[in-house]
């Protein structure tokens, strides 16, 4: 990794890191990106682990999406990530696409960044010049395809907190075609004790320039009974104030409508997931 980071620093500001290539390679093919050099992390050792320790699962930047999909640790300890993974592209894309690539690319409609934001994951970042630093997901995503990563830095791993047993999750999307980037998507995770919601997480994709945590909507659910929580109100709060852009696939108004409907569905599914576990 040290060698890769030195190469990245030497190659200058226009160099890019190549991880799984499922976002960067299309940009190269379409000539939308013209980096001066590519630093491929494919053969760099030590970046492909899924390690659980101290209530945290640390996933190496080069872990493929398919490997996470098949990981018992991910399924059990980070169920919201497990719920989002099958929605990414297609099997052949997930065979190559990586956790670090998806997060560093920071497409505002991508699933893994939304999971990172919802769960307050932490990004472990390194550079040759300044060593390691950690950035919380809330500060990492800064805009369209824009992150806290400096040109000479690489994401080396992502730390997800372990979900408490019995938490309920759901990731729902509306997309034009199976496997397409979602027009809008909603990720929800609920924890409950004695039938009452103790923690709620809601993150939306496709409605802004970054994945969006909806804290006010989360607050509205705390203390409510899982079976009869005000999901409709929370969904309305989640869609409140959104100003998604219009494009060929749908107007901003339609996307705001989707945000409300999909948030409600995600919360209801997450609630039944909680009850199924209870």
């Amino acid at each position, binding site marked *: 990794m040290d060698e890769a980071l030195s190469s990245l620093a030497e190659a200058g500001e226009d160099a890019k890191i*190549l991880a799984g*290539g499922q976002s960067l390679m299309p940009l190269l093919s379409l000539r939308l990106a013209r980096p001066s*050099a*590519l630093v491929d992390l494919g053969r760099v050792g030590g970046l492909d682990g899924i390690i659980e320790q101290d209530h945290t699962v640390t996933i190496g930047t080069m872990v493929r999406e398919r490997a996470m999909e098949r990981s018992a640790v991910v399924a059990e300890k980070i169920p919201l990530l497990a719920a989002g993974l099958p929605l990414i592209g297609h*099997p*052949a894309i997930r065979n190559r696409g990586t956790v670090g690539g998806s997060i560093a690319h920071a497409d505002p409609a991508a699933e893994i960044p939304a999971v990172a934001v919802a769960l307050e994951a932490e990004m472990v970042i390194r550079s040759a010049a300044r060593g390691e630093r950690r950035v919380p997901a809330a500060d990492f995503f800064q805009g369209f395809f824009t992150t806290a990563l400096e040109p000479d830095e690489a994401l080396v791993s992502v730390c997800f907190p372990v979900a408490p047993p019995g938490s309920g999750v759901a990731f729902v999307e509306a997309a034009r075609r199976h*496997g397409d980037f979602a027009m809008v998507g909603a990720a929800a995770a609920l924890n409950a004790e004695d039938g009452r919601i103790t923690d709620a997480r809601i993150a939306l994709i496709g409605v802004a320039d970054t994945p969006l945590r909806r804290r006010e909507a989360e607050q509205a659910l705390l203390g409510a009974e899982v079976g009869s929580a005000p999901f409709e109100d929370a969904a309305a709060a989640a869609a409140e104030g959104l100003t998604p852009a219009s494009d060929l696939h749908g107007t901003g108004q339609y996307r705001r409508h989707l945000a409300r409907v999909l948030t409600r569905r995600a919360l209801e599914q997450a609630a039944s997931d909680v009850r199924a576990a209870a």
Partner: protein
Amino acid sequence: MSDQIDIALTVNGEARRAKVEPRKTLADMIRQDLGLTGTHLGCEHGVCGACTVLVDGAAARSCLMLAVQADGSTITTVEGLATDGEMNRLQRAMWESHAFQCGFCTPGFLMQLTELLSENATPTEAEIRDELSGNICRCTGYESIINGALLAAGVQPGGHNETTGSA
């Protein structure tokens, strides 16, 4: 950056070498340097699935990999499916189901299905549809392709997941 890099890989069971520019895609290397033109290039940016090959057993878009990334790996292309000119079970099932018309997308469908069947010998129709969702056909339509996949898996189209005897 026009320096050429030597790579060595196993393609359809044969050891092959090539000298490629680092910027060259795996798809272009397979077609131009190895002469295996069964791998088709449609969209060239990962959307259509026509260029799907197996890299170390896993389906991958060969247009979204650089040839140098495949150095040392084992690649299977559509040319690797038949043995001594005899179609394999999947190819025969697709043939019998008229699962192609112009045939442009066929190599990608075959390679994606090869991965699926190697991991799950008796997939359901829903699993087949999910697996093939990233492969685009612009002429035949998908019913005959799904039927071919079901036939290869020993599943009656539209029926339940009953495995018939191996052919």
